[in-house]
C-alpha cells in the first residue's frame, strides 16, 4: 500500500516536471509567435504555432496533465485565430489560409491549425458553415490515438460551438447550413469521440484500475457533445425524439462499453429538458435492455425517474403526468428484470422501490400503480430468495419500498394484498419495524378508522407488533429490558390507534373495536395488558355514547339546552369517564353542570377515584330520575337491549349499548385467568358503567364476575386489600340495584373485608365497607 502511494507520488512529480518543461518551451515559442504576428508574417507565425502544437503530440502525459497543457495551448490558439481574422480583414482570402495550414507535415498540429482556420473561415462567411464543418469533421479522423483524438475533437467542438447554424443565429441563412447540419455535426463528433474513448478500455488487468480512472477523467470530453446538442435552440422535442436521441442511443448501445454506457445514459437524462425526456421516453427505455449486463440499469432508471419527478415539482402547473409514462417505466423495469437473470434481488427491489417512489410523487392517488410495484418486488423475492433468509440490504430495501407509498396513499397502501404479501416475506423483526414506522405515520395523520375492514387490514399488517412470531414463544421469555421496553412502546403505539376510531357512529365504532380485540387478543400474555385494558375503556365509553343515542331517540323533542350540553360533552370526550358522566348528563335537568364536570374528574382516570363520595351521592340523586325516565319512556328502548322496565321501541342503533356491554364482558373474561386483579378492576369499572346505563342485571353480573375472580384467583393479601377497596368504591358508585341485589352485594363485600388476613386490614376494610350500609335510600 505504502509502496503504491510512493509510486503515485513519484508519478505525479514526474508528470508535473514534464508539464513544466512543455510549458517552458511553449512560452518561448509563443513569444516568437506573437512577434511574428506583429510583423504580419503568416509563414513564420504558422511555423511557431506548429512548434507549440507539437507539444500535444506527446504520449508521456497522463490525461490530467495533458488537459492542463491543452488548456494552455488553447490560449495561444485564440491569439492565432485573432491573427487570422485580422489577415482576412486586410484582404487575405480565408481559403488561402485554410489551404496553407494544411501544408503542415504532422497531422496533429495540422488539424489544430485547420480547425482554427476553419473557425475563422466560417466567421468570415467566405464559405458555407456546413461545408467547413463537415470538412473539419472528416479531417479529424486523422487522429486515431484515443487521448489526442479526444482532445482534438473537444477543441473542434469548442472552436465551432458559436458557429453552428442554429435557429436565430447568423449562420443559418441561405446556403450556410441548417440546424440539421449542426445536429449531424455534433452527433458525428460525439460518435467519434466516444469511439476513441471506448478504445481506451483495456483488458490488461494490471493497469485496469489506473486506466479506468484515467478514462473517467476524460469522460467530460465525450459528454460535452451532448451538452452542445442540448444548447442548440433549433432542436425541439420532436426533433430530439425523431432524430437526435435515436442516433445517440445507437452509438451508446453499439459501443458496448460499460463505463461509457453508464455515463452517457446519465448525460442524456441530465442534459436535455424534461419535456424531451417525457416525449421520447419509450425510445430511451427501449435501449436499456440492450446495454451491457454490467451497466447498472437500475441506477439509470432511478436517475430518470428522479429527473422526471423534479420536472413535476418544478413545473407545479397541473400537468398530470400521463399515466402512459408509468406503464412505460414499469414495462421497462419488468423487461430488464426478466431479461437479466443476473440482476440481484437487491437491485430488483431497489428498482421497484424507485418506481414506487416515482409513483408516489407523480400519481399520488394511484393505488393500482403502487400495487404493481409491490407485486413486482414480491415476485422477485419469491423467485430469487428461494427460501433462504434475505440479506440485510434487501430487507432494508423492502422496508423502504413498503414505506414509500405512505406519504401519498397513507393507510390505503396497507389495504393492498400485494403489500401484505410482500410484508410477509420479511423477517418478523423487519416486519415489526415497518409496522412501527407505518403506525407512527398513521398516528401522525388525521386518519379516522371507522370501518372494520380498514382496521382488519391495518392490524393484519401490523401483526408483527401485535403478536409474537409464530413458533417463537419460548425464545423471548428470557428477554432483556430493551426488548421489553420496545414491546411496551409498541403496544402503546398500537393502543393509540384506538383513538382514531370516531365514536360518534357507535355501530361502526363497535365493529372496529371487535376487530381490534380479535387482533389484540392474539398478543399473548405480555401484550394484552397494554392493549386490552384501553380497549375496554373505549368500549365503555362507546356504551355511554350508544346509550345516550338510545335515550335521545326516546325523547319526543330535545331541548336546546340539552343539545348544547350534549355537544359540549362529546367535544370534551376522550376518556373513559364519559361513560358515566354521560349518564348524569341525561339527568341534567336536575343536576347543575358544575357538579357534573366535577364528577367527570372524579371518576376520571381510575377506579380508585370512585371513592369520591360527593359524586356518588349526586349520581345517586340522578339515578332515580334516570330510572324513572326509563319507566316512563313509552317509546324507549330497543330490541337488542331490553332495558329493565323499558318498553321496546325502534332504536336508531344496530348495536345497542347492551351488546357493547356483552363485548366488554367477553373481553375482560378472556383476560381474567392471566391478569386476575386487572380483570377484577375492569369488571368493577364496567359494573359502574352498566349501572349508570341502567342495565342493572348486567352490572350485577359484572360484580359477580369480580367476586368469582376474587374468590378463585386473588390469594395475595395485598391484592385482596386493594380489591376490597375497589368493591366498596364500586358499590358506592352504583345506584340502581334493587334492594335485594344491593344487600347481597354489600354482604358479600363485607365478608371479603372481614376475611382479610391481618386484623388491621380487616378493620380498615370493614370500616370502608360500612359506608355501604347507610345513606343510600
Amino acid at each position, binding site marked *: 500500500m505504502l509502496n503504491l502511494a510512493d509510486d503515485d507520488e513519484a508519478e505525479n512529480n514526474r508528470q508535473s516536471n514534464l508539464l513544466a518543461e512543455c510549458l517552458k518551451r511553449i512560452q518561448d515559442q509563443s513569444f516568437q509567435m506573437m512577434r511574428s504576428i506583429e510583423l504580419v508574417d503568416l509563414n513564420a507565425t504558422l511555423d511557431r504555432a506548429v512548434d507549440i502544437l507539437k507539444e500535444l503530440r506527446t504520449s508521456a502525459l497522463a490525461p490530467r496533465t495533458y488537459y492542463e497543457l491543452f488548456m494552455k495551448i488553447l490560449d495561444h490558439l485564440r491569439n492565432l485565430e485573432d491573427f487570422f481574422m485580422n489577415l482576412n480583414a486586410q484582404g487575405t482570402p480565408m481559403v488561402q489560409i485554410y*489551404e496553407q495550414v494544411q501544408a503542415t*507535415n504532422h*497531422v496533429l498540429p495540422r488539424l489544430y491549425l485547420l480547425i482554427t482556420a476553419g473557425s475563422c473561415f466560417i466567421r468570415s462567411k467566405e464559405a458555407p458553415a456546413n461545408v467547413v464543418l463537415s470538412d473539419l469533421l472528416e479531417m479529424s479522423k*486523422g487522429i486515431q490515438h*484515443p487521448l*489526442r*483524438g479526444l482532445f482534438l475533437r473537444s477543441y473542434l467542438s469548442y472552436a465551432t460551438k458559436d458557429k453552428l447554424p442554429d435557429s436565430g443565429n447568423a449562420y443559418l441563412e441561405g446556403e450556410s447550413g441548417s440546424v440539421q447540419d449542426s445536429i449531424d455535426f455534433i452527433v458525428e463528433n460525439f460518435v467519434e469521440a466516444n469511439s476513441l474513448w471506448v478504445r481506451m478500455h483495456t483488458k490488461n488487468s494490471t493497469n485496469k484500475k489506473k486506466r479506468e480512472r484515467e478514462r473517467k477523467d476524460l469522460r467530460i470530453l465525450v459528454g460535452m457533445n451532448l451538452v452542445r446538442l442540448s444548447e442548440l435552440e433549433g432542436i425541439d422535442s420532436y426533433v430530439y425524439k425523431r432524430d437526435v436521441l435515436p442516433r445517440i442511443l445507437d452509438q451508446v448501445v453499439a459501443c458496448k462499453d460499460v463505463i461509457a454506457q453508464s455515463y452517457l445514459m446519465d448525460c442524456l437524462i441530465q442534459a436535455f429538458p424534461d419535456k424531451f425526456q417525457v416525449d421520447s421516453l419509450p425510445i430511451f427505455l427501449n435501449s436499456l435492455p440492450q446495454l451491457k449486463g454490467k451497466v447498472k440499469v437500475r441506477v439509470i432508471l432511478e436517475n430518470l425517474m428522479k429527473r422526471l419527478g423534479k420536472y413535476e415539482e418544478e413545473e407545479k402547473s397541473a400537468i398530470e403526468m400521463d399515466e402512459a409514462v408509468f406503464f412505460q417505466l414499469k414495462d421497462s423495469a419488468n423487461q430488464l428484470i426478466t431479461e437479466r437473470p443476473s440482476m440481484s434481488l437487491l437491485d430488483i427491489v431497489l428498482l421497484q422501490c424507485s418506481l414506487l417512489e416515482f409513483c408516489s410523487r407523480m400519481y399520488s392517488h394511484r393505488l393500482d400503480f403502487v400495487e404493481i410495484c409491490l407485486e413486482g418486488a414480491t415476485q422477485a423475492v419469491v423467485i430469487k430468495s428461494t427460501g433462504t433468509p434475505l440479506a440485510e440490504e434487501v430487507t432494508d430495501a423492502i422496508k423502504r419500498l413498503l414505506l414509500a407509498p405512505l406519504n401519498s396513499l397513507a393507510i390505503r397502501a396497507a389495504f393492498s394484498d400485494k403489500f401484505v404479501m410482500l410484508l410477509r416475506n420479511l423477517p418478523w423483526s423487519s416486519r415489526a419495524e415497518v409496522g412501527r414506522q407505518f403506525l407512527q405515520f398513521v398516528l401522525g395523520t388525521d386518519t379516522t378508522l371507522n370501518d372494520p375492514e380498514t382496521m382488519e387490514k391495518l392490524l393484519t399488517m401490523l401483526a408483527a407488533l401485535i403478536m409474537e412470531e409464530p413458533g417463537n414463544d419460548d425464545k423471548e421469555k428470557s428477554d432483556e429490558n430493551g426488548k421489553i421496553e420496545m414491546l411496551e412502546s409498541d403496544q402503546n403505539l398500537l393502543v393509540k390507534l384506538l383513538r382514531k376510531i370516531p365514536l360518534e357512529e357507535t355501530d361502526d365504532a363497535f365493529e372496529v373495536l371487535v376487530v381490534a380485540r380479535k387482533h389484540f387478543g392474539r398478543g399473548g400474555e405480555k401484550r394484552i395488558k397494554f392493549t386490552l385494558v384501553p380497549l375496554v375503556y373505549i368500549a365503555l365509553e362507546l356504551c355511554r355514547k350508544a346509550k345516550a343515542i338510545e335515550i335521545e331517540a326516546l325523547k319526543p323533542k330535545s331541548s336546546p339546552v340539552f343539545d348544547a350540553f350534549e355537544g359540549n360533552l362529546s367535544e370534551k370526550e376522550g376518556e373513559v369517564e364519559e361513560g358515566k358522566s354521560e349518564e348524569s348528563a341525561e339527568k341534567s335537568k336536575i343536576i347543575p353542570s358544575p357538579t357534573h364536570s366535577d364528577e367527570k374528574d372524579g371518576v376520571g382516570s381510575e377506579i380508585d377515584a370512585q371513592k369520591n363520595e360527593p359524586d356518588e351521592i349526586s349520581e345517586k340523586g340522578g339515578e332515580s330520575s334516570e330510572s324513572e325516565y326509563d319507566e316512563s319512556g313509552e317509546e324507549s328502548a330497543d330490541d337488542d337491549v331490553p332495558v329493565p322496565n323499558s318498553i321496546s321501541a325502534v332504536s336508531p342503533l344496530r348495536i345497542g349499548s347492551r351488546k357493547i356491554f356483552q363485548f366488554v364482558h367477553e373481553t375482560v373474561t378472556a383476560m381474567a385467568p392471566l391478569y386476575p386483579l386487572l380483570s377484577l378492576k375492569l369488571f368493577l369499572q364496567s359494573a359502574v358503567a352498566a349501572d349508570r346505563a341502567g342495565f342493572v342485571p348486567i352490572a350485577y353480573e359484572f360484580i359477580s364476575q369480580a367476586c368469582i375472580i376474587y374468590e378463585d384467583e386473588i390469594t395475595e393479601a395485598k391484592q385482596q386489600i386493594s380489591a376490597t377497596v375497589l368493591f366498596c368504591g364500586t358499590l358506592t358508585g352504583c345506584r340502581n340495584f334493587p334492594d335485594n341485589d344491593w344487600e347481597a352485594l354489600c354482604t358479600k363485600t363485607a365478608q371479603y373485608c372481614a376475611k382479610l388476613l391481618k386484623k388491621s386490614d380487616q378493620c380498615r376494610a370493614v370500616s370502608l365497607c360500612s359506608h355501604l350500609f347507610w345513606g343510600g335510600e
Partner: protein
Amino acid sequence: KNRKMAWLGLQPGATIILEFDGCEKRLTKATNSNEKKGLSSLGEKVPIFEGKEAVSGIVTILVSPGKKLEHLGIKIEMIGQIELYNDKGSHKKFSSLVRELDSANVLIGNRQFLFDFSNMEKPYDSYNGLNVRLKYLVRVTITRNYGSIAKDFEFAVQNIEKEDPAVNPSLKMEVGIEECLHIEFEYDKSKYHLKDVIIGKIYFLLVRIKIKHMEFAVVRREAAGTGPSVYNESETVIKYEVMDGVPVKGECVPLRLFLRPYNLTPSYRSIDEKFSVRYYLNLVLVDEEDRRYFKQQEVTFWRKELE
C-alpha cells in the same frame, strides 16, 4: 566572369547583353536550385518559355567608347542539352540551331541584333535533378582572330497541357499482410497536375498490428544514363503524416494533400533516352517497433500552367 577578365587586362573589348522578348512579364526560375530545395533558394533567375513558344529577343554588343571591335562573324546558337553528372560531365546536345547575326565586320559603339528561334522545337522541360540536368541556353559568339568572345544566356522551358487528361481513373488498391493488416486505399486520380490536390481515403479492414502512425509520401525516382551506367536515385519529396494512433477495424482515414507548396516536376519518361523521372505515392504504416509497412503506387504528374 567577363568583368573579372577585364580587370586582369584581358578585356575582351566588348560586352554582350541579351534580352529575351517579353522578359519583364515572364515568370522566372532559379537555375541552379535543385528541384528538391524549396522555392526560393538562391540562384540566377532565368525566364521561362513555354515549349512551343518562340525564343526571340535582342542581342546588344557594347563596345567601349573610343574602341573598335573587329570580328570575323557573330553568331547565335540555341542549345538544348542534357548533362549527366556521373558521366564525367558529358554534355549531350539534343537540339541545336545556329543563326548568324553579323558577318565579319568592325563594330564601333553599340550594336543591336534581333534574333528569333521561332521554329525550333523545345520538346523537353528544363530539369535539374540529382544526377542529370536538362537545360536550354542561347549562346552568342563573337569570333575574332585572337580569341573569340562567347556568352551563354540560359532560359527555362516548360511544356504545358491545357486540357485535363481524358482518362484519369482513380487508384484503388487492397493490400495487406495475411492475418495482420488489411487496408484498402484509394487516390482520386492517377494523374495530377502540379497544383492539384491529392484526395484519398484509407480504409482499415483488419488491424492486428500496433500502428503508431501513418505517413503519406511522394517519392521521385530519377534514372539517369543509358545501358549499364544508369544511375537510379530515389528521394522523398513530400512527407506528410496522415494518421496518428492505432485505427480500429472499419476506420477510414482521409488524405488531402495540396501539391502547390511543393516543388515538383512533371513525370518524364525516357527523355532523349537519357533519363526518366517518375513519381510514386507511398503509403507507409509505422508500427510501435518502428517497422514500416508500405505500398507504392505510381502516379503521373503533369504541368497545367507555367510556374
